[in-house]
């Protein structure tokens, strides 16, 4: 995008931006003042609903609609900002929190007004120590200026904010696991319903939104829903931060209008795969998204088109895989990740991730037959939809898509490994040696 049309990251590299003075100089907290002085909470909520802003964390649920589910009443209501960015390939929230922390703080306060919430939490992954320090400072400064605390800016709103550090668990990005973790327990997902909007944190109504979603809120309130919708597609409004990584020449965060051609992101912005390499496949929305092929780079990058193509936009993390990477190696690393991160609460996920890893290892040790691919695909089908949360699905969907789209390569790998290790007892060969990634370019 041209610099002028950037919304979230226009001045992101200005070092002043992370101080409260610098943020205010650039118009910061103006939206909050407008929401407090010139608008009723219903109007704030209405504006968010009108904007069509969809959740940027993965599920893509309409943010305003979710906020409207919070019941009215005088009980404690909570906002949990999901800053547990752990989806492999995703690093957009890190950028926002590190370089523009007050944008998030302001977004949360406005969301709290819309949802009539009084206690807000930022659940940030424990590994983001630098970003958590920056956020803690930003929250303290916001308290000092009266943007947080009792009767903020002399209004009737009283809003508190706490930065809560996690301790390293992918599952805590799942909203109900996040709530359990925030309550000081193991991060196990909860059965839904009841949904967090009715019974969430400390049994109270809770609105959970991703960092990037909340960072879009101040501009919507300041400039209006119509302005927000002027970019993007009908059902995917606004801009999106995409994190491009993997085998590309210019990995990084890029802000794009939703609906941009995917190939323009991967080749135009990120420079495409290294010299002499081709795109073998790509994850359009983090490692949980089913892989798409090179020809799919012609598709528009928005929520609907990605879903129609059998994948998902997810967190907006594009991981590009070039043709030097054996698909079995990718599948195995992916499955190992989900096995490690499965919380163990539901059987299909706990056992399914474990067996998938074992079956992929068998392929590489020459013990597998092509029939094992069907068994493995069957395991994936039996995980999908059968767990409390989508962690199991998050492995099953990409692995299933790889088996479907690269079946020939899996079968070749099985045959090669069988011939190479044929007749040898297992211990006699090096196991995973042939899974090394990245043979030199031809």
């Amino acid at each position: 995008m041209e610099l002028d049309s950037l919304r979230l990251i226009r001045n992101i590299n200005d070092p002043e931006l992370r101080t409260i003075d610098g943020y205010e100089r650039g118009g910061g907290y103006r939206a909050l003042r407008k929401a407090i002085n010139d608008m009723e909470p219903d109007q704030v909520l209405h504006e968010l609903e009108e904007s069509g802003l969809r959740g940027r964390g993965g599920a893509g649920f309409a943010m305003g609609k979710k906020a409207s589910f919070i019941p009215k009443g005088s009980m404690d209501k909570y906002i949990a900002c999901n800053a547990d960015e752990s989806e492999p390939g995703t690093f957009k929230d890190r950028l926002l929190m590190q370089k523009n922390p007050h944008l998030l703080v302001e977004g949360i306060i406005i969301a709290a007004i819309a949802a009539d919430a009084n206690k807000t939490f930022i659940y940030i992954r424990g590994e983001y120590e630098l970003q958590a320090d920056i956020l803690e400072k930003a929250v303290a400064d916001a308290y000092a200026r009266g943007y947080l605390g009792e009767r903020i800016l002399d209004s009737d709103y009283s809003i508190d904010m706490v930065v809560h550090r996690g301790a390293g668990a992918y599952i805590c990005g799942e909203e109900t696991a996040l709530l359990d973790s925030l309550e000081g327990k193991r991060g196990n997902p909860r059965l839904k319903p009841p949904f967090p909007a009715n019974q969430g944190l400390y049994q109270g109504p809770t609105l959970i939104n991703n960092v990037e979603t909340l960072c879009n809120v101040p501009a919507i309130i300041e400039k209006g829903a119509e302005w927000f919708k002027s970019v993007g597609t009908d059902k995917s409004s606004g801009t999106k931060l995409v994190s491009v990584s993997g085998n590309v020449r210019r990995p990084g965060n890029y802000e794009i209008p939703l609906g941009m051609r995917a190939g323009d992101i991967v080749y135009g912005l990120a420079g495409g795969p290294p010299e002499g390499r081709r795109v073998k496949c790509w994850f359009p929305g983090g490692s949980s998204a089913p892989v798409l092929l090179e020809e799919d780079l012609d598709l528009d990058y928005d929520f609907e088109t990605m879903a129609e193509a059998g994948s998902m936009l997810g967190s907006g993390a594009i991981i590009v895989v070039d043709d030097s990477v054996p698909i079995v190696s990718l599948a195995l690393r992916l499955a190992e990740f989900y096995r490690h991160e499965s919380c163990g609460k539901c059987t299909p996920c706990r056992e399914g991730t474990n067996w998938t890893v074992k079956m992929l290892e068998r392929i590489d040790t020459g013990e597998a037959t092509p029939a094992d691919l069907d068994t493995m695909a069957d395991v994936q089908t039996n995980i999908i939809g059968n767990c409390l949360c989508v962690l199991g699905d998050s492995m099953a969907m990409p692995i299933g898509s790889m088996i479907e789209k690269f079946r020939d390569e899996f079968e070749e790998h099985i045959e090669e490994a069988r011939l190479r290790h044929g007749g040898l007892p297992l211990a006699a060969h090096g196991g995973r040696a042939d899974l090394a990634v990245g043979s030199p370019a031809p």
Partner: protein
Amino acid sequence: VSHEGYPDPAARPAEGDAAPDDVGREGAMGATPQELRRGWDRSYDKEKDPAVIPDLAEVEVPATLRAEIEEHMAKYPDRRSASIPALHAAQRVHGWCSPLALRQVAAVMQVTPGYLSSVASFYDMLNEDPVGRHKVYVCTSVACHLVKAKAVYDAIASAGADLPDTEIREFECLGACDMAPMASIDGRYVGPLDPSDAPEIVAAIKEGRKPLPGRGLEDDDYRLPWGGRA
């Protein structure tokens, strides 16, 4: 926080503060000895009463640690929400979530040590074993894997094999795939790394200085190799 007067985390704990013995047979499901220590097949004594909530009057807790935990407890509607921040704090003091550390946190928070153990065992950054105070997390997750992160991990692990009081481990996605392959060294994100960076990283840890100046995400002049900002 002063560590004076508290057990040397590098040393195996003294009697009474030791982790229970392992069962001593090959672990279930082929677990490695490392995994066994992480909780598989740990024996327990059925004759013993379950650990109750320790009395704060009977447990000596460093004043600063107690104050920090209480400060965390005050932030939440339910004191148990402070369990992760409190365990982080105790781990900073003790080097790991030792039985003594758990007992101290339990006494301040008025929960059972078992409850805290259930929490500590769930999260990757909390250790119930004395693995080392310095943390080197090398990301080998999907995006880093594509740019040969395993070679980086192997190089750092072998160069740092003799580093005292240091845990070097593979870690799942650290959220810095633009810097891939990368590592978090005591919280400092550095990258992109090459196996040839391993000696410098190890030397920096040994000498107690920041590794790879200019190549950390927190550095003002940090640039990705292609010139972009992270």
